């Protein structure tokens, strides 16, 4: 049986027979379906996915007319960020990277201007600086521009913040104290998001992107949802895009609800529905790549979760497809063969509105 060149979830090249690929496609889809209690991919979907994966061309692309909007996770920050192994670390002015280069070189349709640290709490401290740079970027760019940061509830707990660290409390069996701490941190985070948004709106920013939501579990998601609801009440002209951190919301508080729904344990299609109720304009589900399993398994699984999410959506869905998510391998320089295959599969099988 001929072997096809493909990869593992960590990006390494491997070869697989057609049967091995088909088996992994089925297993990946089944895994997603069983976990989230959603439909598996159809036989036709799996066949299409198989054809995309075994395509002999290194780079693949969608058919004419199927192109989607790219909001692409802080795109232009790739130029200037240097976090050790990710980012190019180039000496470049941020306004140029996030504006002109993002829309003219990277082809991004919605520009995302991230806070250097990536979180709302530190953004609060330097909001005047951010407002100035974003103001300049708005003057020189044409595409819609969002400010982007994470709720990152971890910054509101000790030693960085005032609230007791809840995981330690949970491990000591002090659930009530842990919950009070999480609720306090979520309130403070909500306020930080509103504060930053208010100041950036003054210079004319188009939207706020609340990213990596749920990284600190259900209270983190709760902070993002309540902040969205408040923003939409006060500033209806300010768009909100929300990108998640994980495929399932970790339950640390476990009793937090939004619109009557318990947030802990929500899967992408359920996260989407509460995000819609909060007023989110574009939703970004995240499906985590398992580096030790194959690219076909990971992509099939990611497409299954995302398809279920898209099917339930009334707002645009832009899955996160950066390193280690959305079927893309966990490698700082994600191989182009996998990026383009994941892109085509998400567009043509899951039916996403953007990436």
């Amino acid at each position, binding site marked *: 049986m001929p072997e096809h060149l493909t990869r593992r979830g960590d990006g390494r090249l491997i070869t697989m027979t057609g049967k091995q690929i088909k088996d992994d496609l089925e297993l990946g889809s089944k895994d997603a379906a069983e976990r989230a209690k959603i439909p598996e991919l159809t036989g036709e979907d799996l066949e299409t996915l198989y054809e995309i994966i075994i395509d002999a061309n290194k780079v693949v692309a969608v058919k004419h007319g199927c192109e989607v*909007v790219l909001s692409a996770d802080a795109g232009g920050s790739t130029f200037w960020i240097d976090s050790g192994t990710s980012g190019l670390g180039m000496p470049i002015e941020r306004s140029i990277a996030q504006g002109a280069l993002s829309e003219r070189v990277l*082809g991004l349709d919605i520009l995302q201007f991230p806070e250097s640290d990536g979180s709302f709490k530190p953004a609060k401290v330097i909001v005047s600086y951010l407002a100035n740079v974003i103001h300049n970027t708005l*003057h020189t760019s044409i595409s819609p521009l969002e400010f982007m940061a994470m709720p990152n509830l971890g910054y509101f707990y000790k030693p960085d913040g005032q609230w007791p660290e809840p995981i330690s409390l949970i491990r000591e069996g002090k659930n009530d104290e842990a919950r009070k701490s999480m609720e306090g941190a979520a309130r403070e985070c909500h306020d930080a998001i509103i504060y930053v948004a208010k100041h950036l709106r003054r*210079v004319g*920013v188009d939207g706020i992107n609340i990213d990596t939501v749920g990284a600190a579990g259900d209270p983190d998601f709760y902070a993002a949802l309540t902040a969205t609801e408040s923003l939409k009440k006060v500033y209806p002209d300010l*768009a909100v895009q929300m990108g998640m951190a994980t495929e399932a919301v970790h339950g640390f508080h476990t009793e937090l609800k939004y619109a009557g729904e318990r947030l802990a344990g929500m899967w992408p299609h359920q996260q989407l529905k509460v995000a819609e109720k909060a007023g989110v304009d574009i939703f970004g589900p995240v499906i985590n790549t398992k580096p030790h399993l194959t690219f076909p398994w990971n992509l099939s699984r990611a497409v299954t979760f995302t398809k279920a999410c898209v099917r339930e959506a009334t707002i645009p869905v832009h899955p996160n497809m950066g390193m280690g998510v959305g079927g893309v391998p966990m490698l700082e320089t994600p191989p182009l063969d996998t990026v383009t295959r994941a892109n*085509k599969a998400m567009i043509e099988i899951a039916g996403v509105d953007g990436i």
Partner: protein
Amino acid sequence: MPIGHLVAGGIGSIRTSGDLIGRMQLQKKMRLPEAKDYVAKKLGVSSIELCDEFTMRKLREKLDIGVITGLPGAAKGLEAKVRIAELLGIKINCVERLEKLSKV
């Protein structure tokens, strides 16, 4: 990596009409087919032409809504967005701010 997504399935931002379609998604919650339809009607082009560099390069120049190349005298940045707000029939925050400030 964004270039991989652009090559495989991106609309192309101001190279074509991606900024306009993206704006309708972000500001009006339009799903992709609806956003493409809306922009195509406003521009008087087909859905395929929305992502076609040949059509859109000429059209963007004609409508003066910003082009990717350094065309002398063409609308840039905020200037282009003033015209885009009018073309799409929407409010753009920084354009609103400009109009408010310019009413001395």
